């Protein structure tokens, strides 16, 4: 295993640093090619999202200068970058990648987006030939681990975006959202998103009010809703169970007296105000009324982060899965490490056998078919018997730490060579090739 990983993420580097390292999608193939061409790197790929930029490589000797690559590629001085970098090798690199793919290293633990981003990065690097045998195996395993973590733990189960937290809160108040009415005050992207979530969970009808009436009409049409003139806001608002407000008003537009009116007209049925405006649209005084529930942007964000806390507990379970998967991956790679030696050994002995049979033929002249069969069976039998113990020993050794030594001894004893024999790390020279 000669994996190396270097990078920055939301924890290690401020946004300004991550911005300078971020690689646009269009330039990703070129970066992968550059990386592949960098000294000491056999395979490499780049993961670049808004929260992380990471380089994963399989190197010739396990000590490639990935920092140097970053400095050179991004034209950054070591003092600007190095303090924010983390670097992992071998097993630690594998673990880190598994954690990233499983969304355990994400800002919002358990969010599903990261796996898709890693898959895209992998596909890009593969397309330009920067990823082959070793990284191929590593990433296939990482995707399998991510899937396992998702299905065996609840890490990704609870929804986290502000819009979906708003839906969950609404459900805590109303039980079911079937047949509920939503009122959007101030047409904005965020309120539109929240409304879309609410409608997807069963809300029946929608009102839209905006200072600019035309925008209200436009948004209302999207939801098959009804546009309301801003002047009629207070007279219609009580018909809504859920109000999403995001106007640019400098003062609160919903005050205590409005709340009292609404409640009186609604026979005290509760109302839920989602206030995503800054400064706030709903006065805190109104939120104190019985039956009025107000969540402003900070409250929603807090609810989001409490979800994150729940996920942390699940993340502990996920970490255990990762640990066992790293062990499995390592064991599998090591078994693969001895396979080429076994193949070389078999080839070597087969060559000797064939040469000896040819020699016998030369000396004895034409052999009868029966003699051919007898000689074939005899020589093959001897070789199989002789090979049995060394092969078993190699396979057993592969699962233990002494694999490198045993492989080395076998190669020396039988004077085995292959194309990569010049590589200094004997253990890895027999790594599989596609």
């Amino acid at each position, binding site marked *: 295993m000669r994996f190396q990983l270097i990078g920055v993420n939301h924890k290690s580097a401020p946004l300004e640093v991550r911005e300078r390292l971020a690689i646009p999608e269009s330039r990703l193939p070129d970066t992968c090619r550059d990386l592949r061409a960098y000294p000491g790197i056999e395979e490499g790929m780049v993961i670049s999202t808004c929260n992380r930029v990471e380089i994963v490589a399989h190197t010739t000797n396990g000590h490639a200068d990935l920092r140097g690559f970053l400095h050179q590629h991004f034209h950054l001085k070591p003092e600007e970058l190095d303090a924010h970098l983390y670097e992992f090798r071998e097993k630690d690199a594998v673990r880190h990648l598994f954690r990233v793919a499983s969304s355990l290293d994400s800002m919002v633990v358990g969010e599903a987006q990261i796996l898709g981003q890693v898959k895209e990065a992998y596909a890009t690097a593969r397309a330009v030939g920067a990823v082959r045998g070793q990284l191929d195996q590593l990433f296939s395993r990482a995707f399998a681990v991510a899937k396992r973590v998702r299905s065996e733990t609840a890490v990704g189960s609870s929804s986290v975006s502000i819009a979906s*937290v708003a839906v*969950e*809160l609404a*459900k*805590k*108040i*109303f*039980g*079911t959202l079937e047949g509920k009415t939503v009122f959007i005050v101030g047409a904005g992207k965020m309120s539109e998103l929240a409304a879309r979530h609410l409608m997807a969970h069963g809300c029946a009808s929608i009102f839209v009010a905006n200072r600019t009436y035309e925008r209200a009409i436009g948004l209302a049409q999207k939801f098959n809703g009804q546009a309301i003139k801003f002047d009629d806001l207070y007279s219609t608002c009580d018909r809504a169970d859920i109000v999403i407000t995001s106007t640019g008003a400098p003062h609160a537009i919903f005050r205590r007296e409005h709340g009292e009116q609404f409640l*009186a007209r*609604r*026979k*005290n*049925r*509760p109302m839920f105000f989602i206030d995503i405006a800054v400064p706030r649209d709903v006065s805190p005084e109104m*939120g104190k009324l*019985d*039956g009025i*529930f107000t*969540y402003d942007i900070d*409250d929603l964000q*807090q*609810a989001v*982060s*409490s*979800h994150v*806390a*729940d996920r942390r507990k699940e993340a502990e379970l996920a970490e255990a899965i990762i640990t066992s998967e790293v062990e499995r991956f390592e064991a599998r790679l090591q078994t693969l490490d001895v396979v080429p030696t076994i193949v070389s050994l078999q080839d070597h002995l087969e060559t000797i056998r064939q040469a000896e049979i040819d020699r016998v033929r030369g000396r004895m002249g034409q052999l009868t078919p029966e003699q051919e069969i007898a000689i074939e069976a005899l020589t093959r039998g001897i070789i199989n018997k002789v090979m049995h113990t060394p092969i078993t020993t190699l396979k057993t050794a592969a699962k233990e730490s002494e694999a490198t030594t045993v492989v080395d001894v076998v190669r020396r004893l039988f004077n085995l060579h292959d194309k990569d024999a010049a590589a200094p790390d004997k253990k890895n020279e027999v790594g599989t090739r596609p």
Partner: protein
Amino acid sequence: MSLLWLRFALGCYFIGLVYAFVALTRTSDLFSRIALHAASLGMVFHFVSLAELFLSGQVVWASVHNGESLLAFLSMTFFMIIYAIYQTTSPGVVVFPVVFFLTFVGAVDQQPVLLTQFVSHKGWLIAHIILIFTGYAALVLSFGASLLYLLQERRLKAKKSTSLISFLPALEVIDQIGYRSLLLGFPFMTLGLITGSIVAITTYGRMDFLDPKILLSLLMWAVYMIMVFTRWNSGWRGRRAAFLATFAFVAALAAWAANYFSAIHRFAAS
């Protein structure tokens, strides 16, 4: 023998009581399932106890033991109906302690207060007891629901992180549980009082409105009616509804306790 079954039931309800205390501080699906099964088992014992009493022919409908046992059983029945409809055990937080207390009193071998007068119309008396107890059971549940409503409202308003994973059902669901129990209980309570009056008039030939039992019963009924009315008319819920429900509950307890002071309404020996 009936008392033995009732004590088994009490043991099962005790698990429910523990659940009620635990549920206030943390959520556990497993524990709520255990409590539910224990309560169901308790109801089976309880039913056997009541049935045996009835079949033995020794039933004394107006005894403290039997009355409280019956009330506890009816409350549990209400709880189970609510569970069947809403799939929530959280009303148990209030219902379990009340049921445990009632069953406990019923299961203790105490000397009961005697019914002083001979009642001539036994059928009316039985109807009175069953109706009024069903009304009481509904009131217990409605009271429980209004407390849970307050709790859930406070959690939502406090915007604490636990508000999303709280064990309580949605606010409107709690509200419905409370309102439906209230609506269901009211006719029973009213009919119970009417049959009670009939029993009183046929036995004594008159109604003594100054008797504490009758006075408090009427007060309780009045509070009950105000609750139904304010709810229906202006949708009172939350704090105001909870105060009213508490008041009605206290009035009901007082009316119950008045048995010990009333000249005309006394229990028989069991």
